[in-house]
Structure formats: C-alpha cells, structure tokens
C-alpha cells in the first residue's frame, strides 16, 4: 500500500500557483480582503521570491521606515509576518500571495533568504518529523491516546448518559409541541427553540442542538412551512429514538447516529491513497465559528470525500486546497454517515494543476444516488453527485439542470439561486451541455463546480478556475 515511508517526495517542480480567488478565500474578513487586494501588485514589494517547495516571501513597504517581512508556506498554508496585525492571515500575507498568484516576475524562484530561515526550516523539520511517524490514523490515536483508559471510559459513559437525558427531554418537548399543534409554535417564536437548543448544548449533544436551532428558522421561511417543520421534527424524533435504542442498531448505523447527535469519532482504518481532484471549497459561517468544506474526488478509487475544517473568531480555517488541482495524498475516512467525511493525511509531491472532471451520470442517477445514500443515513440532506452533459434551463422562478439527451430535470436548490455561481454556470454552458458537480438532495441540486465540454475549457472559458494551466474546473461557490 505505502510506497515511500518517510519524507514526502519534494520535487523540484514549482508548486502550483493558486488563483486570485483562492487567495481571497483565505481572508478572515471583507476588510482584510480589500486591504490585501490593494497590496496585490508589485508596487510596495521588494526582495521577494519563491522556492520550489511552496514557500513565498517578500518585503512590503508600510508606513514606517522598516518594511514588513512576510513569509507564507503554501503547503500549510501557514503565515508569518513582522507586522503587528492580529488578523490571520494579515493583509501583507494576502497581498504577497496575490502577487504570487498573478504570476508576476516580481517573485523569481530562488534560495530562501536568511530572515525567513528559522521559521520556515522549523516548520519543515517538524513536518518531516511528523512524516517520520506512522500514518496519521495510528499516530493520531496513539499520540493523543488517553493516559488512563479507565478514566476515559468513565468520561464517555457520563457523556452518553447526559446525551440520553437530553434526547429524552427533547422527545418530551417534541411530543408536547405536537399535542398542542405547530400553529402554536409559530406564535411562540424563536425563543422556545433557542432555549431548547441551549439545553441540548448543556447535554453535550451539539448535533441535536444544531438541528433544534434549524427548526427555529422554519416558521418564518415562507409558504409551506408547516410541512417542512413537521418533516424536520419527525427526523429529529427519529434521531432521538435511534439514540435511545442505539444498542439495538447495526454498527454502521449506530456510528451514523453517534455522529449525528454530535459525538465525534476519530478517523480510522487504513488510509486511502489516490489522486484526489479538489472539486470545491466553501465556508459556512455559524455563529462564531466558520466551517470549511472541501470536496475531493479520487481518480482511481472513484470515491468522494469531504474534508471539514473550522476557524474561530476571525481566523480562516487552516486547511486550504486550490480548487481544480489534483493532489496525490492519503485520506482516512471517519465512520458513519456514508463514510464521506475524511481526514487529509500525507501529501506526496506537489499538486498537479490539471484535472478532468469525475465521470458523471444522468439526472435520474444523481437523484437515485441520494435516495440510495438515505438508506445508510436517513438524516442526510445532500449527497455529492456529478452530472454529465446537462443544460441549465430557466423554469418558473428557478432553474433546473436537464439531461442533454433526455427530458429529465433536476431543479437547482433555492439556496443556489441567489449566488453569483448560478450565472457563472449559465454563462459557461451558453445553452450547451456541461458537466456539473454539486450536492444533490431533497431541495434539489446545489452546484459547486462545472466543466464545459467544448474546447473553451482548455484555455478559454475556465475563467478563474485553475492554477496555471487551465484545468477547466470552474468554481461556482
């Protein structure tokens, strides 16, 4: 399975450049994005350069006499800057990456200068040491393993008891609600749900808490809300019941239930090495925390994988992969929920900037794939699918994707209609068939990436899709 233990292969080829979009996606907020854009030209920079292993550095003239020293290790990514900003990455790191992304000659390939030295070599040494250990899965468990297994078991039991208490309380609230009627819930408003969600947080069941918070927003979500509210209440009730009877469930389903209530398992099993095409990366803000989802598709295994990372309090999530490139890497899946979520392990070599889209299917096949996945996880909202040869078509107030060779259509999810990505998709298609990757669910399809079939994809219409040579993957989010 593993070909090379130890040091990942660092080739001399220059690391794939990111695109402007990818860089801007790293900005912790709108103000940093603006400030970074302003520094994204060679004007204020001097002494800059990059090396073949993903390091980029430069000196940025600020208002003072001494320029700021900025270094970015794009393999992390990780940033270091001598400026006093508490933003992370700071505007200088963003500006430097923008200069790098625009391929300007201001950053010639060269030797790492001394002033970046310590931080960068330290980082690389640590990375190499980490590689030296066993695979991330085994290492993860053993390195952070509990000192006292008995105490850990007791802690887990106590937590399970608290969740059980929470689930019972939630059941009680749901049945009370239905006894009195949902119409009353509309009047009692948001407070009832907020309070219930807080109770679930106390019961250490964040999964239940999040679903309860969702319920609170449904009564204000327009016509047809009672049916939607009943659906979600019923699914929540199903989750409660499943948790309360978890000992009777088959293990894969039990794992899904545990994950759904908010017990995070760790990734386990042998790592899967493949050529992973990065299909999409997007952030969802949720209170103080930002959740970043990255979708991958394995060229050889054919499987889809989702990497989750989180950022708190104005910091962007740590993991960033340029959409449209292919990475040679290992991933380790988490148990439950269709084993979609995975942890990124070691990467080998540098990303290659090309990627052909995953083999896709018809509209009917996409819908069937979602239906099929519901058997393992009835709480699943969406499932990753690729549609081959579909045409975006306006329909009523919305849009749908229609099989080029048939009459079957898949509506786009309402959430996709207000995003700029919709028009990008329509423009890319120009009324002709395209390949689309997205999340397909009971509300329709949320398109995340697209490829056009004509020669335009090779050099023309890929727009801002790719690193250096157009891979043709067009980001829609």
């Amino acid at each position, binding site marked *: 399975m593993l070909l090379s233990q130890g040091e990942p292969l660092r080739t001399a080829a220059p690391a794939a450049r990111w695109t*402007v979009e990818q860089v*801007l996606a790293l900005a912790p907020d*709108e103000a940093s*994005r*603006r400030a970074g854009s302003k520094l*994204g*030209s*060679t*004007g*204020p920079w001097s002494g800059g350069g990059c090396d073949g292993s993903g390091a980029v550095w430069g000196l940025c*003239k600020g208002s003072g006499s001494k320029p700021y020293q900025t270094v970015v290790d794009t393999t992390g990514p990780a940033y270091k800057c001598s400026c006093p900003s508490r933003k992370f990455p700071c505007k200088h790191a963003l500006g430097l990456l*923008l200069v790098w992304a*625009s391929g300007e000659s201001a950053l010639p390939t060269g030797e790492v200068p001394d002033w970046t030295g310590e931080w960068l070599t330290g980082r690389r040494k640590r990375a190499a040491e980490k590689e030296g250990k066993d695979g991330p899965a085994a290492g993860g468990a053993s390195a952070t393993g509990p000192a006292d297994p008995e105490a850990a078991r007791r802690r887990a039991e106590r937590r399970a008891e608290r969740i059980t208490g929470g689930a019972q309380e939630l*059941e009680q609230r749901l*049945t009370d*609600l*239905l*006894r*009195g*009627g949902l*119409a009353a819930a509309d009047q009692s408003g948001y407070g009832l749900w907020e309070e219930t969600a807080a109770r679930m947080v106390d019961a250490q069941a964040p999964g239940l808490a999040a679903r309860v918070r969702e319920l609170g927003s449904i009564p204000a979500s327009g016509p047809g809300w*009672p049916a939607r*509210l009943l*659906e979600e209440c*019923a699914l929540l*009730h*199903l989750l409660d019941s499943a948790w309360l009877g978890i000992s009777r469930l088959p293990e894969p389903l039990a794992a899904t239930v545990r994950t759904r209530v908010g017990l995070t398992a760790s990734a386990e099993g042998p790592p899967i090495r493949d050529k992973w095409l990065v299909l999409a990366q997007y952030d969802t803000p949720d209170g103080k925390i930002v959740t970043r989802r990255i979708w991958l598709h394995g060229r050889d295994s054919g499987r889809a994988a989702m990497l989750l990372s989180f950022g708190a309090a104005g910091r962007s999530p740590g993991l960033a992969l340029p959409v449209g490139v292919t990475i040679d890497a290992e991933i380790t899946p988490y148990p439950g929920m269709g084993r979609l979520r995975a942890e990124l392990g070691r990467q080998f070599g540098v990303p290659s900037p090309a990627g052909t889209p995953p083999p896709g299917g018809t509209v*009917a096949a996409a819908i069937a794939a*979602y*239906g099929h996945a*519901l058997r393992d996880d009835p709480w699943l909202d969406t499932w990753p699918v690729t549609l081959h040869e579909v045409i975006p*078509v*306006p*329909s*009523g107030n919305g849009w*749908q994707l*229609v099989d080029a060779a048939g*009459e*079957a*259509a*898949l*509506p786009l999810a309402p959430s996709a209609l207000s995003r*700029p990505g919709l*028009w990008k998709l*329509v*423009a*890319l298609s*120009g*009324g*002709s068939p395209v390949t689309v990757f997205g999340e397909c669910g*009971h509300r329709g399809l949320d398109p995340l990436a697209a490829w*056009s079939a004509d020669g*335009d994809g090779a*050099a*023309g*219409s890929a*727009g*801002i899709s790719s690193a*250096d040579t157009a891979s043709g993957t*067009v980001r829609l989010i």
Partner: protein
Amino acid sequence: MPHTITPAPWEELVTAALLGTDRRPVEGNDGPAGLLDAAALHTVRRRAGLLPAPAAPRPGPAPVDPRPPLPTAARRRLAQLLADRSAAGGSGGRRGTAPDLTELIPQWLATANQHGFRAPAALLPPLLDAARSRTDLRPQALVFAGPRGLWLAGLNPEWKFALRGSSGGSLLPDVTDSEAVARLWEEGLFAERVALLGAVRAHDSAQALALLATTWSTERAEDRLMFLDSLRAGLSAVDETFLEQALSDRSRNVRSTAAELLSALPESAFAGRMAARAMSCVSPDLADDGVSVAVEAPHECDAAMERDGVVAVPPSGRGERSWWFGQLVEATPLATWPARFGGRTAQEIVALPVADGWAEELHAAWCRAAVRQRDPEWARALLGAPSVPPSTGPGPASLAERSELLALLPAAERGAWVAAFIAAHGLSEAFQLLGVCPTPWSEPLGRSVVDALDIARDAGSYPWSFSGVMGLAERCLNPAEADRLEVLTTTPDEPENASPGANGYWSEAFQRLVSTLRLRAAMDLELIPG
C-alpha cells in the same frame, strides 16, 4: 420504531400536526409520538423515492463566438480587476501606494477589444455587473462580452441594459433584401429598428431616408427624435430635404434637432437663410484706427426664424435680442465670415475688436458654431494661444467649452496645446482639458504634467488637492515613463514652510503613480496575442 403503522396520507399528518393531536387525533396513530413516527417514515420514504422533474423548454444555445480566447495571464488579470471592483470604496484623499484597479478596467477592455479577444464565459457575469453599474464601461464591455454576453443578458432582467444598446442580439437581414428589411422595419423592436436604419444608411443614405419616411408620421415623438439623432452619423447633403421637412415637425425637440443638423451642412438652404440673417447683424466697421466688428442684434423673431428653429423665448435673465442673435450666429456656416471681413482668416477675425460690448456674445456663438460644424481652424483661433490666461483670451471662459474646442484639434496638436497651457498656468484648471487629450499622453504633455505636480509638491501643498489630475496621470501617462518617475517616489527633507507630513503623502502618491504605470505595462504585455 414500530414497523406496523397504517400510513395516513401526508396532508392529514400535516393538518393534525398543525392543530395538535389533542384536537385532531390521527387514525391508527397513537398520540404525538405515533404521529412523529408516521411523519418520519413518510419523510424518508418521500426523499428516497424522489423522481426527476419534467424539463422546461430550453433556451436556444448562444451563438458561436469565433474570436480567440484570452491568454491565461490576461484572463487572470481581468478576474482580478473585476473582483476588485466589488471591493473598491470611494477613493477619498489618501489612497495608499497601490494602484486603483477599477480605474484600469476601461483601458484593459479597450486593449482586449483592439486585439479582438473573446471574453471568458465564466467572467461574463461580473463583467455585465460592472457594465450595469458603470455606463462608461458599457460600449467596450458589451463588445468584449460578444454574442454569448447578449445571450446571457437575455436571461437575467438585471442585465436588460445590454439588450437596449444592441439590436437585441438578433441578426440584421441583408440590407439589399428589401422585403426582409421592410418586415423588420414594420415589426422589429425599437433597438432593432435603430440598428437596421444604421445598417441601411451605411449602405445607401437615400434608401434609409425612404425607409424612415414610410412610417415617419406614425412614429412617437421620442422615437422620431432618436431616429433623427441617428442621422448624425454620415450626415450629408442627401439628408437635407428630409431635415427641411422635419423643421415643421409637431415636436419642438425634433424641430430643434433638425435645425442643429442642418446647420452642420454649410451648403444647405437652411444654412444660407441663417447666414443671410446673421450677415445683417454683423458687419465690419471701418473706423480711423482700423477695422472693428459692429453688431446689430435682431429686433424681432419672426415666424420664418421660428420655423428655422430659433427659440423665441429666452431663458430667464437673458435679453431676447442677444438670445436671438446668438442662435443666428451659432447656426451660420463659419465660411461666411472670411468673405464678410475682406478675406481675413479665422484668427484675424477673432482678434478684431467688437463694438459695444458684444464681444463675449459673438465669440461664444462662434465657439458653439465651431463645435457644431467641427471646424478645427476656428477652434484653434478661438482657443487662442495656450499661454494667454483663460479669463482674458478671446475664447470661452468655461473650461467645458474650451475642452470641446480642444477636441476638434488634431491629436498631436491637442497634447502640445495642453502641455503649453499647463506650463503657463499650472494644474488648477487643466483637469477637463487633460480629459480630451489622446492617450497615452505624448511625451511633452506627460512631462509638463509631472513637472507641474513636482512644482506643486515643492510649493508645499498636499497631493489630494490634485487627486483628479493624479488619477488621470495614473491612467494616461505613457507606461514607459515609469522608470523616469521612480526618482519622485523618494521622500525628500521637508522644506521650510511646507505643510507637515505632505512630503510623505507626495511620495506615496508618486509611488502609486509608478506602480500603476508598471501594472499597465504588464497588462498590455499580457494582452499581446501569444
């Protein structure tokens, strides 16, 4: 979960859930928990059994765009320019050292269109958004967006503007196919008809007028005005008869536009009538000390004058006689005057003294006539020497009118004139004049602007007093000048009596100027077809 539920229909479950099981028990389900069980089963079953929807009618595919795609670096640059647009705030006084990318979009588009590149499909939406909010970008942006851009705009009401300015993206018939032309003229949308008229006119003016005449009396006044306005392009003696008829149109705007167009045809009967009237008002006056100009303004505005587009009622605050006089001179062919003044040139005539304080009125009317008739010789004469202070010269005191005159001069002469003007008077009144200079600025013009900025710095003012000129310089200086300007980006010692800190701001402004020039040079390189 119990597995033996008699499934009640979904609607029934929803009704029961809305009203509450206390009021509305569901048959065969036991209380709220039973209702939730049944609803969960329904929900998962429905989601798992979803089927494709029927397809709506497809929009036709976008027309093929044969232009070559952009080079990769240029595509990336465009993405950056358009992404920056959404982030740009109002540029108040201090703007840092980084270029203002948004301001470079027009240039970028013009260069891309010169090379005839096709817009990348994925960037069409931000391109159309940019053109929507900035009308100055529209012509170039729409050319660049091409047929796919129009196709896309047809699907999004927010981009309606793109369809207005074009023939709706539809193909015009062959102008020699009289049947197809007549059909489109009868049935087409207004934009299509304007485009059709232009196409036929380019092929054969007389045919276009004949086409227009077929429906002229039934068109709405505002459409008549637009059609008439479209005759500006390629105006010739052929149009005279039609315009003469339009002088008696029902709509006042149509009448005055017809008069304006006729006055640009110096050979027309209309121009002759106006010249005769103007000659009776303006005559050379031979006195002891040479020739001067005598002015006798008209005493009435008769029906014939009104028919020729003279507006009888002056705006408030203007005497009616001078008001009529100005209109007569404005519509008179400028070629009339040398004959009237013994073969003198425009320059000599403008230099003549004018009796009784009519000079300002007469010169202003000549300026309007020069602009209307696009006469460079008179424009040159009326502008006078660039070293003469604007307030004392023969020409118009208003900078807007001066820049209109300036625009009539040949490109090289324009740059030289403004360069000399700045050398003599500094930058404070140069902004509008610079706006009509050809870009990139010629070397003498560029040098005079930079020198004037340098002088302004030494005089101790702040750079934001010149932010307008600075912005123009960033966009219009020749990018090749960047290296020569590098020396200005240093921060010299504060001179005595300088404004505190001004030097730092100046070096910042010059840094921005230099980095913008470098960026423009890079953009031009990226757009060279590889």
